């Protein structure tokens, strides 16, 4: 059984491990479109996959957040990646299967996964 006492223990642990968070300029942001169009197209599992992959790899300075309709509903689920000092990259028609590759190639190694971007898909 999950108990609130257990939560207390997690808190103590988290407090020890929490380094000063920098959710500001120097963090990479992954933004998932979560309006009606995005949700209907499967944005929720995509968002979960990102947060789980970031947690699994224990990546610091990477935040996952949500936004509204980006305006290209037919290409949902849409994910925008903002790496500080670089141009925004827009991934379209995302799926859970594509998430690990985006995290490994783009977020960790800095190589944009061109075949998933809006530029390649929307001709």
């Amino acid at each position, binding site marked *: *059984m*999950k108990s*609130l006492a*257990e*939560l*207390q223990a*997690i*808190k103590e*642990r*988290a*407090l020890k491990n*929490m380094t000063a968070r920098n959710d500001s300029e120097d963090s990479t942001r992954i933004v998932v479109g*979560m*309006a*009606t*169009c995005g*949700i*209907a197209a499967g944005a*929720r*599992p995509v*968002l*979960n996959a990102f*947060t789980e992959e970031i*947690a699994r790899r224990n990546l610091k300075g990477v935040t996952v*957040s*949500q936004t*509204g*309709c980006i305006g290209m509903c037919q290409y949902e689920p849409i994910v925008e990646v903002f790496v500080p000092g670089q141009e925004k990259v827009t991934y379209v028609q995302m799926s859970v299967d594509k998430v690990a590759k985006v995290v490994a190639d783009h977020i960790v190694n800095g190589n944009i996964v061109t075949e998933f971007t809006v530029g390649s898909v929307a001709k």
Partner: protein
Amino acid sequence: MRELSLNILDIAQNSISAGASLIEIEVAENTAKNELLIGIYDNGCGMTEEQVRNVLDPFYTTRTTRKVGMGIPLFMLAAEQTGGTLSIESEKGVGTRVKALFKTDSIDFTPLGDVTSTIIVLITMNTDRDFIYTRKRDEQSFELSTVQLKEILGEVPLNEPEIAQWMKDYINEQTNILLGGVTQ
């Protein structure tokens, strides 16, 4: 929408856009009557009577009230196609209450789906808001309240991965108990 849990996520986004600080989500089954009630209640900016009428109409909205589009009409369709109903009560400056009633024995009943996932996304993506999730089945119920969790956690945020995992396990476990599954 393939699952009602996705409609819940979608409607709750309206509450967030409406600036709500507290969003309550209720999922209540009445097995004797084969009914399911889904309620999303917020203390956001609320709507005028005219706006309430308009959000029910998918062809009116998008441009003028950008915050609401197809969301409510889709949710209403999901309820009405089972023989159920959708109602909205709203008051400017007070908040909005969206209630949908489903007939679960209808062939057109959309499965509830992964409500846990919806709740976790809402909580972890909006740590500045509070959520109270209540799941009921006949006389039994359980609740997860971020107001209570924040009291315990202090400055540790709810989107900390280990906390998110705890909330997910907690809701799943409590749901299983409620539905008569695992009880240890």
